[in-house]
Structure formats: structure tokens, C-alpha cells
């Protein structure tokens, strides 16, 4: 029953994202209108894919570092992405794909660095060290990019931060296609790790006794979740709260089993970001709100409500 409800909610959110917009398009012309075909539809699909990816990445990382505050950007990816984007603008790299690609490369570089710092003794990935390494690498990259921006004279650089604060304005069928080809692999790796992640919750040692190759599991989950987040940042900037709150909502309603939780947070994250983006486009039309603000405005009250209900029982 819960599954039917979630699926219905997801379809409803997606339909709303296609039907509603600041421009008036009659229902009869929905499929013929270039505004719907080239702008709304790819944006709705992208919002769903990015929201779902952030939800799955957040849930997996929270399980990996066993920290409820973990979110997809905790491990330095947003700082690395902003440094990449700012560097691309400062070096005058042109073309419509320059910014997303540079942000992606920056996020991957941060991921590599955090991974290397998190390898204790060169072999074992320690979640606590990983979190610390992520925070310092992210802070360092953010500081370098802020320094470049404040010392530079190009207006374009100041606006690079607008892009990084997140938004789906750049959505088109090319970005959707790129994400559709890219995301299934890391998603499959994480879905396949559902059962071992359940065992990891018992602790690393017990999980090892139960037959989990803990070292391999941690590496795979870390790399897959980071690759997913890096792609999300590249196409839509840093959108907060989805990767933090949706996994918690999923656990409150579905429990801690990852085999159910991961599909739930994919649908839930996609639903939340679709709804939030629709609100961002429509609420103050013709103006537009930053979507990250709306995800917080929509997600936090829902989360608080569930938390209260859950702690009362």
C-alpha cells in the first residue's frame, strides 16, 4: 500500500512538473508546444533523476560512514565542483559544456583526494577519517575558489556562484541523455550493495564475520555514491537537503533495510525535487526561486513532522 502511494505521488509530482509553468500552455497543445517539449519535459526528467540520485547517494553514504548527518556533499564534492567551475571561467574555457564538465572534473579530483586521505595505512578506508578528509578538502577547495573570485575582475566569475548554488535552468535533452547513460552504473552498484550495507550497520567486524568483504564494500559504495553526486552537481549545481532529508524520511516510513530503502529514496528524492522545482518555477512567476531554498522549505517541515511522530512512539 505504501508502495502504491509513493508511486502515485511520484507520477503526480512528475505530471505537475510538466503541466504547470510560468508560461500558459493549453492542455490540448501540451505535446506540440516547444516550451513543453524542449524546456519543461527535459527539466522535469532531470529534476527527477537528480533528486533520485541525490537520495540514493545520501542514503548510501549515511550507511557507509554510519553518521545520520552525512549528505552527498559532505565528502568535499561541492567544494571540488565549485573550484572546477570557477577555474574553467577564469581560464576562459568556452562552450555550453565547459562549466558542467569542469565541475564534474573538480568533483572527481576532490573525490580522489578524499579517498587517498581516507585510506588509513594505504589500504583500509576509515569512515571517520573519510568524513574529516571530506570536510577539509571541501573547505580548502571552497577557499581557493572564493580567493580566485574575489581577486578576479570578470563579472562572469561572481555569477559562477549563482550557478553552483543550484538550479535546473540549464536542463535540455542532451543533459538528460548524458545522465541517463551515466547514472545506471553507479546506481546498480549501490543497489547491489543493499544487503551488505544492512550488515555493515551491525559494525565492521560483525559484518566481516557474516561474510561481507568490508574493505571492498566501503570502496565500491564510496566511489559509486561520489560518482553519482559528481554528475548531479555537474548538471544542476549544489542542491541541498534532498540527499540529507529524503533518506531519513525513507527510514522513518520504510525501515532500515536497504533493499527497500534505496528504491524508496530514489523515488522519494525524485518526487521531492520535482515538486520543489515546480514550486520554484511557478510560485513567484514570472520570477523564479532558487530550487535549493524550496527543497528546504518543503522538505524540512515534512521531516520535522515525521520526526515528531516517530519520537512520540
Amino acid at each position, binding site marked *: 500500500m505504501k508502495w502504491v502511494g509513493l508511486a502515485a505521488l511520484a507520477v503526480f509530482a512528475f505530471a505537475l512538473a510538466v503541466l504547470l509553468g510560468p508560461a500558459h500552455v493549453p492542455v490540448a497543445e501540451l505535446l506540440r508546444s*516547444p516550451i513543453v517539449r524542449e524546456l519543461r519535459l527535459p527539466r522535469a526528467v532531470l529534476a527527477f533523476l537528480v533528486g533520485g540520485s541525490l537520495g540514493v547517494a545520501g542514503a548510501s553514504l549515511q550507511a557507509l560512514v554510519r553518521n545520520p548527518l552525512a549528505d552527498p556533499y559532505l565528502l568535499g564534492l561541492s567544494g571540488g565542483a565549485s573550484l572546477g567551475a570557477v577555474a574553467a571561467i577564469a581560464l576562459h574555457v568556452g562552450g*555550453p559544456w565547459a562549466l558542467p564538465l569542469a565541475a564534474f572534473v573538480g568533483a572527481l579530483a576532490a573525490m580522489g583526494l578524499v579517498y587517498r586521505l581516507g585510506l588509513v595505512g594505504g589500504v583500509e578506508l576509515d569512515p571517520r577519517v573519510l568524513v574529516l578528509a571530506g570536510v577539509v578538502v571541501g573547505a580548502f577547495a571552497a577557499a581557493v575558489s572564493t580567493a580566485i573570485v*574575489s581577486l578576479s*575582475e570578470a*563579472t562572469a566569475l561572481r555569477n559562477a556562484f549563482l550557478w553552483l548554488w543550484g538550479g535546473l535552468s540549464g536542463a535540455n535533452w542532451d543533459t538528460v541523455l548524458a545522465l541517463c547513460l551515466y547514472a545506471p552504473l553507479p546506481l546498480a552498484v549501490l543497489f547491489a550493495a543493499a544487503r551488505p550495507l544492512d550488515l555493515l550497520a551491525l559494525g565492521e567486524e560483525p559484518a566481516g564475520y557474516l561474510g561481507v568483504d568490508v574493505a571492498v564494500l566501503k570502496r565500491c559504495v564510496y566511489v559509486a555514491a561520489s560518482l553519482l553526486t559528481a554528475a548531479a552537481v555537474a548538471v544542476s549545481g549544489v542542491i541541498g537537503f534532498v540527499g540529507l532529508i529524503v533518506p531519513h524520511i525513507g527510514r522513518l516510513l520504510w525501515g532500515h533495510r536497504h533493499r527497500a530503502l534505496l528504491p524508496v529514496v530514489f523515488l522519494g528524492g525524485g518526487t521531492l525535487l520535482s515538486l520543489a522545482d515546480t514550486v520554484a*518555477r511557478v510560485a513567484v512567476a514570472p520570477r*523564479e526561486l532558487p530550487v535549493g531554498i524550496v527543497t528546504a522549505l518543503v522538505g524540512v517541515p515534512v521531516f520535522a513532522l515525521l520526526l515528531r511522530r516517530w519520537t512520540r512512539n
Partner: protein
Amino acid sequence: MAQRPHLVGLLLALVACGRAGSRTPAAGSLAVTDDAGRAVTLAAPARRIVSLAPSSTELLFAIGAGDRVVGRTTWCRYPAAALSVPVVGDGLNPNIEAIATQHPDLVVLYASALNETAARQLERIAIPAVILRQDLLEHVARDARLLGRLTAHESGGDSVARAVLEALEAPPPWPTSASRRRVAFVVWDNPPMVIGAGSFLDQLAELAGVHNAFHDLTSASATVSLETIAARDPDVVITIADSEDARLPAFASAREWQVVRAVRERRVLTLPGALFGRPSPRAAAAVAELRRRLQALR
């Protein structure tokens, strides 16, 4: 409740004191109220001015007080004579010590929260600061007169003000408003930001005989959906570039922007920031240049 009359009385007394103070300045001093509502009093006309906004630097040179500018921002590059003035910062978050080393007797700031804090800091080290909000052409005229008073260049300030107001009141070139072309100023592409009625660019468009498609937005600029730009269907998309090159902006080749007819048909104008990046005394020249470029695009 019983305390309320006292409070009101106290407030009124404070306001009265403030007014009395600003109405009776010392003999020979200059008193003005700036755009942040602060009373600014100078003992004598300013001789060493640090100007922290490109618009006010240009204005000071225009009214004939350019030789008194002893500090500028990296962005103040017009007129060419301004380039020989030392740079004291980027104008966003003023460096008080860098300003103080120029020993100014007046600092001109653009209206922002950071700059109001800076003005208070400057007051503490006895450097007067004036905060000017220059968004519209009227503001250029008003501030030309204000800076004219503060620098004892009243006639220079007055003639600049009159020239700007004259340009503003000039009759539009073609009277039929129905056939006017509609433009959209796109100042950033992701997220798309456009210019509204609160900006001088909206005024320049009207004066050049075209209509800003986002005239209904009252602020100077606003973030909008790409969908809204496509639906409003402007005839020409206008951008402002720092450099002089007239290449198409990068977003003009982005796939999602092809939904906007003006972009698809390559009716995109790139205007030089030196003339169009801020409200300036050269409003008449800006209008003529915009009209010329729009006609060339036909």
C-alpha cells in the same frame, strides 16, 4: 502600556535633536542627506575623494572634479584619466585601511549593506562618507548635483544633471507604440537573470524606441525561468559584455536557449559594458548607440 508615551516622547526628542543638528551646520560647511538617509556634513569642499563605484567615479570626472579623485575601484575604467588613479579595492567589501592610506576627506560608496557598515567604520576614523544609489538615470542627475555641491563644482554638476534630464525627457523616436520591437536584457544565463523597470537599461530601451519585455518587474534585475523568456518572445535579446568584442554570448549556442525565438534567429545584441554597464552622464550617447545597433540588426 504606561511606558509608551515616555518612549514616544523620547523618540520625538531624539528626532528633533537630529534635525536641529543637521539644520544648523557650522559656518562655511556643506550638509547633504545621502541615499541611505544619513546626514553628511563636510567642513569644506572635498579635495581628496576616494570613489568606490564606477558610476560615481565617472560622474566626478564628468562634473570636472576628476583631479580630486585619489582612489578608485578596479572596475572604474572610464574615463581613461581615471586609470592613473590608485586602486583601493574592488568596491564590494571596502578595505578601510587601504582607503585611509589615501587620506581622503570624502569617500563615495554605492548603496549596499556592506557599504553602510563601511561608512560607519569610516566615521569612526573621522572620514566622511556619502552613500549614493545609482540605478536609474534620475539618480545620475540628482547625484551630479549632490557631488557638485560637495566638491564646489555646482555649475559642472548642474550642467551634467540638465544634460541627463534632457536625454530622459527627449521624445521617443517613433511614436507608434503598437509596432515597437520588444527586447529582453539577459544579464546572466544560468539561472537566467533579466533587467526590470528598476534599471537604467529599461529607460535606455524606452528612449531608443523599443520596449523592455520585462518592464512589469519593478526591481533592477530578477531571476526568471527560461520558459518565461520564451513565452514573452522578445524580438531581440540584449546582453552586456565586459570586453569590446561583439561575439555572441556562449548561451546563444546552448540547446535549451534555442526555444527563445530571438536566440534561434540570432537576433542577439552584445553591448559594451563601458557605455551600458552602469547609469552614466553619457545617457544620450548610449541611447543613440543602442538605436544604431538595433537598426543595424534589422
